[in-house]
């Protein structure tokens, strides 16, 4: 029991979820109260995690749970972005009548699931966390149940995700069968000798994980789910599961399967290249901003995975830096999206941005910054994200990966430029509402300034990340 302080965050959030459920049952019209309480509980959760961040490495529960620098950092950015996601979305779910008590509770439970995933050091614990977050996400995707697209996306996500979970589970059982353990460290020790069983296990597990991170060729669900889900849920999808999945990727590749890197490196390189190219090319024809950001996130995940393919600490750190900057850019982008509101209707087509810059100079400028940053043009934060990744990739002399990746950025630049063109060069349309809630404005301001001013002090992230070492 003396270890209980280390999982205080998880215990706290579980108790909060149960408490909010009880409040929701016994108190009428408590929706807004629960939403705000959830947000507060997330802030407390963040404080609790930060409080533990001095711990370098500690194993709990028979080595099945691990708290180290990686898990601490990932949880901090996870919960931190969770707070902003809740802040940005609060007005939106009121306007489109989704303000039900389940919404914040589902978000909290999926965050809990992700935290368990991030900290797991055992196949069973990992799978438990994964399913907890997935189940919450299925419901969230179809949360707008009167909307055809939303229900479709929920169903689609459920079917495909269940399939991938099945594959993942099969991979886990194969790994367990051939390495005689579910514990990550034990698997590492037992898998020194090569055998086909574990290789198959790796492949199946990677397929499952690639699905969760929406990497090509397991990306098919992403565009539909992004488009169909309520925008606040899309934002959630775009950030939080990616953080969790990436840290699980790092965990799997560098703990249980570290000895078999010659087996999985090619797979990761392939997935990475395919995602970069496909995401860039497929986004060109899109008309819906949410769909476009889905393809864009596919290609961004390709870059994040490129860092992992390097088998070096530098590469892992670059991927983590990448996802940190990526989440800020997404927060900024979606804040802009939530500002495209007129008469209680939200607009999400690219054409709706036409001539935005004339009436809304500040909003357009933020979008301009975000889009150039997503395209990876210096001196914005997005450039540094890519720069670190390619620094790591080229260190390992993986020139092919680097050149393909950089050429894909040129293709990707095209569709980001197209949005900028529509905002700045095209004739203007009707004005949008200019009054927004404070949380939205603050998030947009913070994230835009972060993107814009990152180059002044780029060490801000890298110094923290440099503590994370896996090899």
């Amino acid at each position, binding site marked *: 029991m003396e270890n209980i302080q280390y999982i205080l965050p998880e215990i706290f959030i579980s108790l909060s979820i149960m408490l909010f459920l009880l409040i929701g049952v016994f108190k009428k019209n408590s929706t807004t109260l629960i939403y705000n309480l959830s947000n507060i509980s997330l802030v407390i959760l963040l404080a609790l995690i930060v409080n533990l961040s001095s711990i370098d490495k500690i194993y709990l529960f028979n080595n099945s749970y691990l708290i180290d620098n990686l898990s601490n950092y990932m949880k901090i950015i996870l919960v931190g972005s969770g707070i902003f996601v809740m802040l940005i979305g609060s007005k939106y779910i009121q306007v489109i009548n989704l303000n039900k008590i389940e919404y914040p509770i589902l978000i909290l439970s999926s965050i809990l699931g992700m935290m368990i995933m991030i900290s797991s050091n055992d196949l069973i614990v990992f799978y438990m966390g994964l399913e907890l977050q997935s189940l919450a996400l299925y419901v969230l995707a179809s949360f707008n149940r009167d909307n055809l697209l939303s229900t479709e996306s929920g169903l689609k996500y459920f079917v495909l995700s269940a399939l991938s979970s099945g594959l993942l589970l099969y991979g886990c059982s194969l790994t367990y069968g051939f390495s005689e353990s579910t514990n990550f460290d034990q698997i590492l020790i037992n898998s020194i000798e090569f055998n086909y069983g574990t290789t198959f296990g790796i492949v199946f597990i990677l397929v499952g994980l690639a699905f969760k991170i929406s990497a090509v060729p397991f990306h098919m669900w992403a565009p539909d789910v992004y488009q169909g889900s309520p925008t606040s849920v899309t934002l959630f999808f775009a950030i939080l599961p990616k953080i969790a999945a990436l840290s699980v990727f790092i965990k799997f590749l560098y703990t249980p399967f570290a000895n078999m890197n010659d087996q999985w490196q090619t797979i990761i390189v392939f997935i990475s290249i395919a995602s970069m190219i496909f995401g860039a090319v497929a986004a060109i024809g899109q008309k819906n901003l949410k769909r476009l950001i889905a393809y864009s996130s596919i290609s961004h995940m390709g870059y994040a995975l490129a860092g992992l393919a390097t088998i070096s600490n530098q590469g892992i750190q670059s991927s983590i830096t990448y996802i940190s900057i990526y989440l800020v850019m997404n927060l900024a982008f979606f804040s802009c999206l939530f500002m495209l509101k007129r008469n209680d209707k939200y607009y999400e087509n690219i054409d709706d941005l036409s001539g935005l810059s004339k009436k809304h100079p500040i909003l357009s400028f933020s979008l301009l910054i975000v889009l150039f940053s997503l395209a990876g043009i210096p*001196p914005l934060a997005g*450039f540094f994200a890519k*720069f670190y990744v*390619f620094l790591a990739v*080229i260190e390992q002399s993986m020139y092919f990966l680097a050149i393909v990746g950089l050429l894909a950025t040129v293709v990707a630049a095209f569709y980001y*430029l197209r949005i900028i063109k529509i905002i700045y*060069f095209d004739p203007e349309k009707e004005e949008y509402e200019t009054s927004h809630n404070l949380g939205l404005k603050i998030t947009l301001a913070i994230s835009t300034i972060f993107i814009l001013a990152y*180059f002044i002090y*780029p060490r801000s992230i890298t110094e923290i990340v440099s503590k994370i070492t896996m090899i």
Partner: protein
Amino acid sequence: MNFPILSSLILLPTIGALFILFTKSSSEKYQSSKYVALFISLANFLLSLYLWYIFDKNSVDFQFVENREWLSGFINYKVGIDGISILFVILTTFITPICIISVNATITNRLKDFLIAILIMETFMIGVFCSLDLVVFYLFFEAGLIPMFLIIGIWGGERRVYSAFKFFLYTLLGSVLMLVAIIAIYWITGTTDVEKLYELGIQVEYQNLLWLAFFSSFAVKTPMWPVHTWLPDAHVEAPTVGSVLLAAILLKMAGYGFIRFSLGLFPIASENFTMLVYILSLIAIIYTSLVALMQEDMKKLIAYSSVAHMGFVTLGIFTMTQQGIEGSIFQMISHGLVSAALFLSVGVVYERHHTRLINKYGGLVSIMPRYAIVFMVFTLGALGLPGTTGFIGEFLILMGAFEKNILVAMIASLGVILGAAYMLWLFKRVVFGEMNNQELKSMKDLKTFEIITLSALVIPILFFGFYPEPLMNSIEASVENTLEMYNFDLINNLASKD
């Protein structure tokens, strides 16, 4: 450390831009913003002149060096200048106020945004010429795309979207390979600090590929044949001021990059690829001159002439002779002044008559005598008449070329004749001849601000044409040093082979 004069030069325009961004202009026309921008850019010009004054012309070292920790301690923010870069810095700070003065005429909507874009652009351009670290250089080099994309796209002509995209994507595509090369250099040598790289040198086996990667970026930016096609489009569609910035300064980044990085870092590869550059340059000179002859659009004609002139520059750089390189630098400065002036001159008539087609004009000399005079000076400057800066540049380049390869020099000399042909023909058709178009009668001669901007350009073109000494003085020592290092590396390499 002393007063960080280079960082001030780089940052001052941005501060001005922020100031304009956050102040509300009282009048509709944003006059006060314009005065702020003008004041800032003039202050920057004076600062750069002061820099030139205190600059030690006899030293071959980088001066006013600032070195600060930046990216996790392994890549530093390092700036400094030598005799080669200082002239480009002054060119930039000199052209920017001229642009800001002439903004009045061409830009009618969103003047405030335009001023901000120009000032930000100035920051990036000065940054390119001052940076002594490859990553910092890349940062400034690429960042310039953003404001230029917006300048072409928002304030450009009919096909502005196409041109802006073409400009952006061409340049970006060229540059990403340079990024790969820069990172590769970091892992090969352990540093991206240019000064240290000069000392360390890069292993011979990597040089060819790295050179090609840098070349892909610079060739697009120069622009060299066959990747020059973005330039005519960008020039034609950009607003006058945008064309001026593009021709006068942006194109020079590449020429500067060739001298600083291609020659400095990869001497052996540069020697290997000399013939490639010669051939591409010659094609650029002859082919684009011929194309320029056939143009009906004034801006397009000048754009093609830019490609031809930059062909001379690349030719001169890769002669690897003192005269050739000095001539190239001189030619770049001269082209910066002359092409800026030509685009402004086209802007003058375009603003009055709203067409750039040459055959719509004729006989302007009788109604716009002042205009005819300045336009003549610029035309003569562009074709390289003795007494203008254009002559000295081309003459030195050809001198260098004759020393290395007589055939190349002879073909290049043809370009001079062609240059004279298209420029004089343009001048004849626009300024002389009969005035067939009655609408032209109502055109007024130069306004005050046009006289100011154009004569500000006439003076240096003629002054340095007759007396190039001040410019030559500044570049001489640095060019000599670059060449010495270059030859030293070559000899070492030969020795190691034997």
